């Protein structure tokens, strides 16, 4: 491979990262540690001298590990079904699974409490059936509701990444083993699972980082007594304004993630096996036997109930108006009752959200393709790049937000109130997911196909276009959907958006919930329902407009 070209390919995403991640991060760390002119490391002393912070670190780690394990176990059956079977409504169901990921915690929390709370549907049902006088399930403010919420939010990551890899897995390998006398379990544990391992690891790493840096779920559902590092960073930075301490905590969070990424990249590079990928026409079959139908139906039903019940509750509440059931909340959304100057019609919020999401998809997918290509084509050092692109995910939003103020509100980079910082920030968050869904696929392409093409006279660009690109389209699609939903649901970066007229849907929902009154609550729920509906339609459309079956391989 032409090393100069490889360098150029890498340069673009690296410059992006350097400018919009490392520069503001450096600015805030510099301000925190050198603010007084001399190096101030009191933050670290405070952390390591106080058993409380070590406790927080330990809690953050074990809850993230267990949440990740549970999410993988919960999502594997559905990943298998979507990889191996074809049935009606598949695209729609797949689109529906992404919805939890983009819902703001502040609207999901009331729905969770309506289901699992002391006066919730589950407890009421149990009390009726078993004639109990007290609610039997106490989930609120416990670790269990955190697990449930983490599975709810991150299910789609495991499901999508693993099912994409599974779809391309050659079933002939398993069939051959069966013919030679292996039983189903043996085939799964000795063939399927090892081949899927890179994808499962990739998904697990992402889920772990999301759980490790979990914020809203812990704060709202876990109660104030359970705190993750991210929560502590927010408290110290935003409210105590103790920047040396917050910066030290941030660095510890980044450091922990970095260690994890290094372990992971080592594992993944060892596990990836180049193999023949198969088109869907070969790997998937229709549901024929009754047993298969029952298995698939049961699984899909359970999945949909778990993922959609809170969302259904939410729609139910959006229809509940002071005057009974109706569309009142939806109709009221566009009315600027108080003639407020900062009122934003929901149609505008929707337009902003979709605009930012489209830009994010375009930028994130282009940058990720370049990065993923360079990562997989580099023999040594690939892991370094891999790790570098994951770091934004591990960085506290409030820390980075302060960094943006320091870095971009003065010459020469005076970007204050610049609208385009929003898709930039969204891209920063989306990059790791998009790269992660592309890299494992690229690793599986047989190098000899590329070499053959090059030998026959194709230049590197043509090799990419003819050999690599058709193979990665499916992975790119998964990445695009991730970029899209990240942008739609993103809230942390919205603190960068100072201009009310450019607010996104989640921001509009938060602002409605900032005031007392049932009408505001109902409208927030209605706006959430609109966000869900539009997202589901957009994602279903994206999945339909995939490149024709023949061009896939």
């Amino acid at each position, binding site marked *: 491979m032409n090393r100069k070209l490889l360098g150029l390919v890498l340069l673009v995403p690296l410059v992006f990262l350097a400018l919009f991640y490392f520069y503001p991060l*450096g600015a805030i760390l510099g301000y925190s540690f050198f603010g007084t002119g001399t190096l101030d490391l009191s933050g670290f002393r405070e952390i390591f001298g106080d058993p409380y912070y070590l406790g927080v670190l330990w809690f953050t780690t074990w809850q993230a590990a267990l949440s990740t394990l549970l999410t993988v176990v919960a999502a594997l059956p559905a990943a298998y079904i979507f990889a191996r079977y074809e049935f009606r409504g598949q695209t729609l169901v797949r689109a529906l699974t992404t919805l939890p990921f983009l819902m703001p915690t502040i609207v999901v929390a009331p729905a969770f409490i309506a289901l699992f709370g002391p006066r919730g549907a589950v407890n009421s049902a149990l009390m009726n059936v078993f004639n109990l006088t007290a609610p039997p399930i106490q989930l609120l403010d416990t670790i269990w509701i955190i697990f449930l919420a983490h599975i709810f939010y991150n299910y789609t990551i495991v499901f999508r990444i693993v099912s994409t890899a599974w779809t391309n897995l050659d079933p002939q390998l398993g069939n051959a083993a069966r013919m030679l006398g292996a039983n189903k379990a043996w085939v799964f544990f000795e063939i399927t699972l090892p081949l899927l391992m890179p994808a499962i690891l990739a998904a697990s790493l992402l889920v772990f980082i999301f759980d490790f840096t979990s914020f809203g779920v812990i704060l709202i559902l876990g109660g104030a007594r359970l705190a993750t590092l991210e929560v502590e960073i927010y408290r110290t930075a935003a409210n105590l304004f103790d920047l040396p301490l917050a910066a030290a905590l941030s660095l510890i969070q980044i450091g922990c993630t970095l260690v994890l990424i290094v372990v992971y990249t080592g594992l993944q590079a060892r596990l990836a096996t180049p193999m023949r990928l198969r088109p869907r026409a070969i790997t998937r079959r229709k549901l024929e036997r009754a047993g298969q139908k029952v298995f698939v139906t049961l699984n899909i039903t359970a999945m949909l109930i778990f993922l959609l019940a809170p969302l259904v509750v939410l729609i139910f509440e959006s229809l509940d108006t002071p005057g009974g059931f109706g569309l009142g909340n939806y109709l009221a959304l566009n009315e600027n009752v108080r003639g407020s100057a900062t009122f934003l019609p929901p149609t505008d919020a929707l337009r902003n959200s979709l605009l930012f999401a489209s830009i994010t998809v375009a930028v994130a997918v282009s940058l990720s393709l370049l990065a993923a290509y360079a990562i997989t084509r580099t023999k040594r050092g690939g892991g370094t790049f891999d790790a570098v692109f994951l770091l934004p995910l591990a960085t506290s939003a409030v820390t980075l937000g302060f960094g943006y103020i320091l870095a971009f509100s003065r010459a020469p980079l005076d970007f204050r109130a610049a609208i385009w910082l929003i898709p930039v920030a969204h891209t920063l968050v989306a990059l790791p997911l998009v790269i992660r869904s592309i890299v494992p696929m690229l690793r599986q392409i047989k190098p000899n196909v590329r070499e053959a093409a090059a030998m026959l006279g194709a230049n590197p660009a043509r090799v990419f276009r003819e050999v690599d690109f058709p193979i990665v389209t499916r992975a790119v699609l998964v990445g695009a959907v991730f970029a899209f939903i990240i942008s739609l649901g993103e809230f942390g970066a919205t603190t960068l958006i100072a201009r009310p007229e450019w607010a996104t849907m989640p921001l509009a929902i938060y602002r409605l919930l900032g005031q007392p009154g049932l009408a505001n609550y109902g409208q927030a729920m209605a706006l959430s329902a609109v966000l869900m509906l539009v997202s589901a339609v957009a994602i279903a459309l994206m999945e339909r407009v995939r490149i024709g079956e023949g061009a896939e391989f």
Partner: protein
Amino acid sequence: MQRFIIILVLGAAFAAAACAPVKAPTAAPDSPAPQSATGGAATELVVVTHDSFAVSEEVIREFETANNATVQILKSGDAGSALNKAILAGASDPLGDVFFGVDNTFLSRALKADLFQAYKPTGADAIAADYILDPEFRLTPIDYGDVCMNYDKQWFAEKKLAPPQTLEDLTKPEYKGLLVVENPATSSPGLAFLLATVGTYGTGYLDFWTKLRANDVAISEGWEDAYYTKSTWSGNGDRPVVVSYATSPAAEVFFSDGKLKEPPTGNVLGDGACFRQIEFAGVFRNAKQPELARKFMDFMLSPRFQEDIPLQMFVYPVNPDAKLPDFFEFAETPKKPATIAAKEIEANRETWIKEWTQTVLR
């Protein structure tokens, strides 16, 4: 080669960030852009504020027309974050011209950062002396409101239980497990409520919180979560008493589309049970449009703007001449809210929050 590039690019970024001078908030020479004459292009005034800021469109239009200006409102997070960002951006090149929304719990932090210029707006003389916490008028009070506990009237009626009256009541066995408060480390009403307990019990405030904890108090991260998720009034929670604002019951009537004739919730108004928050505004020291900014300060104290405040933000105007909207008849004010001097708050805020966290959460 690739390693070289990665090291080069990242190194450059870090170096650039590290070398960028972290400007101490020193006063740069004041060089305002020349004011455009009437009839010329409109001058832009940038108002930096928090997410809860609201004002009527027609009120802003009036100011714009009268001064040939356009008002750009920049919202940068909750009250604490908005101020922190303004401090980080520094005084020499501020984020805008006017800052609205420093409250008395953060007043000293804002003054210490030396962001604002002294300007006593027209109409400031009419403001009650209690609200003027900065005699130099770098920060001028604009509105005030009380953080109080709201209780669900229907819940208490059904249980045939008298609603609590004082802070002390909440520690009694009959009110066990009924209260939800916001975490003072993450929430502005939460901090105000903590200050109410400090103002009432003084150094003994932690004993009160120990009793409250034993009485199963619930802690929420923010007001939204406490009010809409954990309280019974939202329909899903199990806490009939929630720390909110004294005007929330009135706002419930206002936002009910005429369905509610009287507030569904009441206030716990006993002495020291509430804490008064006062909100301030100021002109940035190096504002690009200092003249226009000062005019905006005058405008914010004028009856036009002041009468718009309760309607938009559910707090009281500091101008005693401003008329209140009709639905404020449902709003109640505590006779004796707890008070603490701003200086004392600034000196002890972090300690109180840390001690509270230690006592209530761990």
